[in-house]
């Protein structure tokens, strides 16, 4: 009797974890494409093709998830990514400064943009949606203007040194981007913040209700500014990595990351309204999105339908996810329903 009860309890608590729905979504989508995509999709190179996408997306989606759990949105990651990449390429490519100078400047700029987002949001009390949207346009315009003024063009080439190439932009086993390792590191840091440091509870509390969070003495402004700063850093990191890997940077790179990061976060089970979500869920969300995106190419279906299939599959993933999240939040077992 006792043993039976315990296994039942463990199973239901596992099902109620925020990432369970995301896990089911991922498994369903993977099996779907494993069947229709054939052996090339399951093979090493096929796996790398979606894992690389998931890694780049995931590095940005994880800090964005923190921003969203705290009840804000960051729509500026697209231009911030380009700002990081273009800065690196202009300094180390166009001006031939050491690669490290370009990398650190790119990251510093991205971090500063994030900090500025946070500062404006906190000081003006404007919705972060509006502030970061404005930043996305402003930074794009700034980089476009500066880049054309300096180089006369909008796409800058760079020859990175060996060390930066090895750390930030090369393929392991000729298939897997080093971004995957950096993704794991970022996941570790974000998990630590969320689950081990006092910041984790603060973030959930702010996302749940910022006013009561402030009343209980949580440094709300500091936390929100820090989260935006982290998100800016991560976006520019991906920009720098792309620049090192592909040896070129373009001013209008990265805009697709604005929506894709939010999609990954939401598919990963984070509530759009904040206060709920998990690191593992966001990792699974990024993987699900990447599999859907890349899997289509392996099916041999008419590519005209790709976006339709993508949309339908994402909807299925989120629906599955929501079903289990409702289960999780309600706290009731299913026998009552």
């Amino acid at each position, binding site marked *: 009797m006792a043993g039976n009860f315990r296994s039942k309890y463990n199973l239901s608590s596992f099902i109620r974890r925020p990432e369970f729905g995301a896990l089911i979504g991922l498994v369903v989508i993977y099996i779907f494409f494993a069947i229709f995509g054939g052996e090339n999709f399951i093979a090493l190179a096929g796996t*790398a093709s979606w894992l690389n996408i998931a890694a780049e997306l995931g590095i940005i989606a994880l800090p964005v998830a923190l921003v969203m759990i705290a009840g804000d949105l960051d729509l500026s990651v697209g231009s911030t990514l380009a700002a990081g990449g273009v800065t690196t390429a202009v300094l180390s490519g166009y001006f031939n400064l050491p690669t490290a100078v370009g990398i650190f400047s790119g990251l510093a700029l991205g971090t500063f943009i994030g900090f500025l987002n946070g500062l404006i949001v906190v000081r003006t009390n404007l919705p972060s949606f509006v502030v970061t949207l404005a930043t996305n346009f402003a930074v794009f315009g700034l980089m476009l203007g500066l880049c054309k003024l300096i180089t006369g063009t909008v796409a800058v080439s760079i020859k990175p040194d060996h060390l930066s190439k090895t750390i930030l932009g090369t393929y392991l086993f000729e298939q897997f981007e080093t971004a995957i390792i950096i993704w794991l590191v970022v996941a570790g840091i974000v998990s630590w913040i969320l689950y081990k440091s006092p910041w984790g509870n603060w973030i959930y509390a702010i996302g749940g209700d910022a006013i009561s969070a402030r009343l209980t003495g949580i440094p709300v402004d500091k936390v929100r500014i820090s989260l935006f700063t982290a998100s800016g850093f991560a976006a520019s990191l991906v920009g720098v990595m792309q620049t090192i890997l592909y*040896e*070129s940077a373009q001013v209008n790179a*990265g805009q697709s990351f604005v929506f894709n990061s939010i999609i990954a976060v939401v598919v990963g089970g984070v509530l759009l309204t904040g206060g709920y979500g998990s690191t593992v869920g966001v990792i699974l969300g990024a993987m699900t999105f990447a599999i859907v995106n*890349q899997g289509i190419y392996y099916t*041999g279906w008419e590519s005209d339908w790709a976006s339709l299939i993508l949309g*339908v599959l994402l*909807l299925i993933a989120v629906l599955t996810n929501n079903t289990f999240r409702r289960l999780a939040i309600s706290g009731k077992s299913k026998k009552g*329903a």
Partner: protein
Amino acid sequence: MKISRSLKIAVAFSAAALALTGLSAPASHAAAKKTVIVLGGGDAFFAIVKNGVKAASGPALQAGVSVKYVGLKNYDNVGPDMVKLIRTAVSQKPDALALPNWVSSAQNPEIKKAIAAGIPVFLYNAGQEQLEATGAKAYIGTNEYQAGITLGKYLASKGAKHGLCINTSPGSANIKQRCDGMAEGMKSGGGKGETLELPATKFGDATAISNAVKGALTTDATIDAVFTIASVDTDAANAGIEAAKSKAQLGSWDVSPNILERIRDGKSTAAVDQLGWLQGYQVVNYAFTWVAFGMLPGTTEFLTGPSLVTKENAAVIIGAAKSGQR
């Protein structure tokens, strides 16, 4: 109850998705022994390219080669996205690969890797100057800058003195070449040309483009020629010229039935057509005859254009535009 309902919806959606994809799965795959993968874009121009690819796929299939077209969803991050697309294509082990080389610094290493892995590569649409550097078999396409000059010169010869190029994709190097070429063409015709850059998100956004054109024309009355960089932007630019009650000439990149009818009726001046259909058709021809029979024409640089469309030849081209070749 709620839970089971959303599950039902999910099941219904998956069933619909499966049914739909089942319909479009090519039945002839089993017969073909070899494959050619064509990478490209996803806008109106590449819809025409794809029609060309399809037209050449029939003969390819008869030779035992199946052809698959895969397009980018957008041009936001063209270099890295193309690299990923090439890697995805290579992992499917095709017998040949055809692709535009838009950002050579990013794409060349991947193209070389594909060739080293035994997959012959054919460039089309962009990358003529990269033929030797990459080791690709052939290039089928046009020269953006030269085509721009052709169009700019023609409008200048029709009396334009001050041209404005509406660049709705300011990050893309090849689009910049188009505007630069048009400015150069205007200059050599005794006029001058400049570029109005709109944010990348305005590509194909009719309201934004027509209002930007209207604004520019009413602010500076000396502008007497407007250039667009894509067929999707051209109708909007025309609306902007009309709204500003301006007499400015309109020169566009690529064609559509609307554009051709305006040129035929003398409302717009000219267009350069890269002949996208021919690019798609020829690159598949080059690739499949190589894969199936080991044939490679002596002409490894096949120039499909630019073809200048003016009042004189617009009427002839309209039929082909309506059936999807122009």
